[in-house]
């Protein structure tokens, strides 16, 4: 066997060996998992929706976006720049999101609220968030004991919600996001 062939095989073998090591390290890298978004209501009705909802948020943002768009499907009168979801940013429910589809969202300690607040300072029917006829989202305090705050002001009348403005109920803060 010629010297050249053996040299090529020698270097080739080392290259293949190292390739295996590098591939193995890549597998370890892809083995670190991000977070996933689970549908909270779905668990009660069976795993089918949960499967669909389970997705990597960090790894596959395009997929997550697509799902939100399909979730909004049919609601074509929504304007550009309008909020698409409500996010709980502080309190025990931090991380919870609700897609905005033109439905009324009720907040409070009552079990049938859209967002059930586990908060001593919240009333059982505390506030609601709904779209008006133009698609502008409105927050209304439902006569709660401790009040609902938009930014720093306590609400007395139904008030339009600017994008990203914090709505505070007890220890819970929610905001609307695109």
């Amino acid at each position, binding site marked *: 066997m010629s010297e050249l062939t053996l040299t090529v095989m020698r270097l080739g073998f080392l290259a293949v060996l190292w390739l295996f*090591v590098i591939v*193995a390290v890549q597998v370890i890298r892809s083995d670190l998992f991000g977070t996933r*978004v689970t549908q909270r209501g779905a668990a009660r009705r069976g795993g089918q929706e949960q499967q669909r909802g389970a997705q990597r948020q960090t790894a596959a943002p395009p997929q997550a976006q697509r799902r939100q768009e399909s979730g909004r499907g049919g609601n074509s009168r929504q304007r550009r720049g309008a909020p698409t979801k409500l996010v709980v940013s502080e309190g025990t429910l931090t991380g919870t999101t609700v897609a905005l589809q033109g439905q009324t969202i009720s907040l409070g300690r009552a079990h049938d609220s859209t967002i059930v607040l586990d908060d001593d300072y919240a009333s059982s029917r505390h506030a609601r968030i709904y779209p008006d006829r133009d698609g502008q989202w409105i927050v209304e305090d439902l006569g709660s004991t401790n009040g609902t705050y938009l930014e720093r002001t306590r609400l007395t009348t139904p008030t339009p919600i600017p994008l990203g403005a914090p709505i505070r109920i007890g220890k819970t803060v929610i905001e609307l996001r695109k």
Partner: protein
Amino acid sequence: MSSTSNTTTIGTIGAPSRRNTELALLVFAVIIPVFAYINVGLAKEDTVPAGVLGYALGLGLLAGVAHLVVRKWAPYADPLMLPVSTLLNGLGLVFIWRLDQEPQITTPQLGGAMAPGQLMWSTLGVALFLGVLIFLKDHRVLQRYTYISMVAALVLLILPVFFPARFGARIWITIPGVGSLQPGEFAKIIIAIFFAGYLMVKRDALALASRRFMGLYLPRGRDLGPILVIWALSLMILVFETDLGTSLLFFGLFVIMLYVATERTSWIVFGLLLSGAGAVAVATFESHVQTRVHNWLNPLELLNGGVTETAQAMYSFGSGGILGSGLGQGYSRLIGGIAPKSDYILATVGEELGLAGVMAILLLYGLLIERGIRTALAARDPFGKLLAVGLSGAFALQVFVVAGGVTGLIPLTGMTMPFLAQGGSSVIANWALVAILLRISDTARRPAPAPAPSTDAEMTQVVRP
């Protein structure tokens, strides 16, 4: 669509099963040794060796069956452990076969060709691997046998004392008509089970009942008991079996697991002090250990007209250089005896694959150990955590002791490089070890079962006016 169905929570993502990744890596791990096999044949005899098809099919079959069993019985297990073990075992077979081609060290007195025997042992090892995966449904079952494992491990450790010494160390037991066995290899798995079960129960006493002194936590006298017993035991192994490696392995394993269980650095300090004192004490009066230490300190000294094995191994590494001499083109046969196939197989790797190859092999060991520790991190039960740390710790210590000994970092001890070196007990025991780690990682990575729906969370029927 009701409003609640759009409520989402952000949580951690469950592990996908990764079985297809494992299959792809496994194919890769079979191709590399086959490539090496062809390379050796071309370098030594200018032809593709005749047995290449049989060898490729054999290794492929072993890997394929192992993969199918993992897919069926441990679907969420770690994707990396099986391919890395297969690759190391396959490369070990190629290296032993390659050394079998040297007539000087394959004489009948030295046991003849060893690759066929090693292939048989590997098959037995994979069979045991499959057996463990199929019959050990849950690693927590092992917890029931905490004290039985202690007794079993002690028996396995003491048995070799009653058999004649070979190559200066009493670590073999000989069963007439079957062959010889190194019980220490199996004892390391069993003793890890004992330590895990014992420390899980005792770790609070060991961690919390202590006085602080100069930044160290001094444990109470009665809590110090077990570590002293294990230390005395490992010293006794050293004295009566003259086996430095096994005694280091057991004491080191205990210190590692003690540290992981209690999070007290002081145990490591105590462990190092005790093992240092013990090793020095034994080395002053035990001649076999003295010889090893002497060879380590003066490798170039002339003995019987030639240099020591330690020096020969260093020459091997040196002549290999960065990229090596190429498979089948080294001279590690000059180490003599069967040592190049067992203790010094890393020297052959170093000569024929060079520094680059040795680093790749050591990284493969590192990856295997990393996956073991990772399994321990992911495991949900304390026993599984400790057992995974113990098993990967034992594996890591063994790799360190052998690689350190061959490269001249520490005195050489009679242990085998896991998977790579010739030796039936070693390859079988290490396959069993990997199987237990895979079982723990399957339990750890399996997605948690959905919580039973609580009646409180059910939607209340509200009658609205």
